[in-house]
């Protein structure tokens, strides 16, 4: 059953189409990756799904509801975003940040109640951040901060989790920790995940399906083994690569080839 459906979406900021003719469906509980070079429209696509931008053409539906007719708060109860990183001028505590996930469920005046504290606590326990609850957000390491942002997203109790290059500032261990956690939530809670990333190998490892964007259009879409091929990657990224099978997982693995570095 599809939970997210895009139909012939087109978007432009000014003149040229940033995205054109984008149609796809994401199934409930699916882990969908979005790959593509810089400027291919990945982030714009994410902003269309979370309602920050409105499409010029076409429409999108979440759980059968048209996003165009939804209020912001209603959309925030369906879709949560884990951003790249979050640095704050005025530091909130971890618990305060996670509780902010409850805001779309509260009215303008209402304070968080027992139930909201309970939900926030559960979200922090799931992400192993409960012990950090009283700490200031700016006193955390990058990996800890990302876990807190996942907890905030979980506190929103969304149907779809959007990841916007969430591991861009993390080292390899924290990248794996991060995606392991997301994958576990994805499987255990049947939480649908749409992840934008630059890391083709991580996408190969975790995603059920991958959308490869190029110049605002879908270049190809499907299982990692189908999408991550030498011809697709070279066509889109315009750089020589080799694609091998990972000896352990059997999944496709991309290695960039530089003629300069290899003295060819």
């Amino acid at each position: 059953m599809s939970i997210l459906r895009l139909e012939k979406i087109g978007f432009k900021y000014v003149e040229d189409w940033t995205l054109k003719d984008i149609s796809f469906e994401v199934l409930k509980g699916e882990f969908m990756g979005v790959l593509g070079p810089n400027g291919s429209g990945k982030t714009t696509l994410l902003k269309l799904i979370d309602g920050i931008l409105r499409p010029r053409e076409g429409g999108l539906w979440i759980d059968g509801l048209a996003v165009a007719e939804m209020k912001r708060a209603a959309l925030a109860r369906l879709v949560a975003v884990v951003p790249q990183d979050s640095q704050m001028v005025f530091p909130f505590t971890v618990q305060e940040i996670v509780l902010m996930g409850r805001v779309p469920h509260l009215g303008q005046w209402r304070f968080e109640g027992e139930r909201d504290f309970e939900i926030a606590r559960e979200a922090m326990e799931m992400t192993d951040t409960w012990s950090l609850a009283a700490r200031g957000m700016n006193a955390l390491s990058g990996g800890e901060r990302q876990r807190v942002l996942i907890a905030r997203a979980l506190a929103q109790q969304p149907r779809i989790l959007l990841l916007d290059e969430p591991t861009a500032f993390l080292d390899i261990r924290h990248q794996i920790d991060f995606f392991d956690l997301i994958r576990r939530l994805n499987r255990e809670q049947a939480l649908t995940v749409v992840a934008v990333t630059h890391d083709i190998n991580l996408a190969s490892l975790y995603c059920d399906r991958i959308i490869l964007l190029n110049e605002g259009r879908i270049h190809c879409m499907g299982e990692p083994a189908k999408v991550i091929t030498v011809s697709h990657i070279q066509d889109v990224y315009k750089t020589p690569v080799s694609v091998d099978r990972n000896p352990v997982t059997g999944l496709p693995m991309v290695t960039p080839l530089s003629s300069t570095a290899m003295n060819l």
Partner: protein
Amino acid sequence: MTQGPVTLPRVLRISLSLLLVLLAVSVISILVGSTKIGTLPAIKELLYGWQDGYVGLAPEERTIIFSIRLPRVIFAGIVGASLSLAGVVFQGLLRNPLADPYILGISGGAAVGAVIGIIAGAGAIPFGISGLAFAGSLLTIVLVFGVAKTKGEMPSNTLLLAGVIVNAFFTAVIMFLISTSSQTQLRSVMFWLMGDLSLAEGKEILLTGLFLAAGFIVCFRYAKGLNLIVTGEETAMQLGVDVERTRKVLLVAASLVTAVAVSVSGTIGFVGLIIPHMMRMLLGSDHRLLLPASMLFGGAFLVAADTIARTVAAPSELPVGVITALCGAPYFIYLLRRKTL
């Protein structure tokens, strides 16, 4: 000192404590002054003096308490609260710890209006100087928002730059006006520029209080949205906040509260900058607590500062802005050193 998340009981508890602080400071302020009045009789007079037939202090002492000191204390409280409230909102909205109520040039516009008023002798008519100052600040708000608006949006950085530039322009205008003014006018101008709580009349005090009350209710309503905007405007949108509307409403509310306060009291510095920081260090960054706490503590702070300003060199008075900076800066540095931001 940040004990867990903000709940309604916690907001009420802290607000009530700070209200008691404000009341205590106010009573002390009423008791001191160049004319000595006995402490106990004066407190009795404050408690029962409004009743018909109560015989307490002599009529002239009564006048000093009820017609001179009490209005002045109330006024100082309202102005301090207004500047602190606006300071919290501007710092949050612009996500800039250096922001204060004057950062958008509202004070500069008010000052130009007031200085023109003083030089033209508008002090003789009711609302003469404050009316011109208010007109000046309103004009500035329209000007700055207009300059900062690009394609229907008002980015924080553009807004900040517009404010700084407008302020610089007005400073030049004020310098020009000062250079053409006489000795006696100059003293009035200097006092106004440094902040002067002795100018206000009953109606002005009432009006300032009304703007403060309305401003607080509006800002408190959008406090949760402001929390989210502080963590980033895009994040706020993703969490369901109507960012554009929230920003617009808060900007206008904080600007108007500032404009009114500045118009009747001059440019009292420092309060709107340090009180929000103090409260944030002590109570955390949640605006649902920060707004009422800053308001009440800012009120108490300015009442105390004004008490010092009018007693330390009695019978002459110091500009209250001098005291706010002299007392505020060291205490702020102490807080900064004690707790890393």
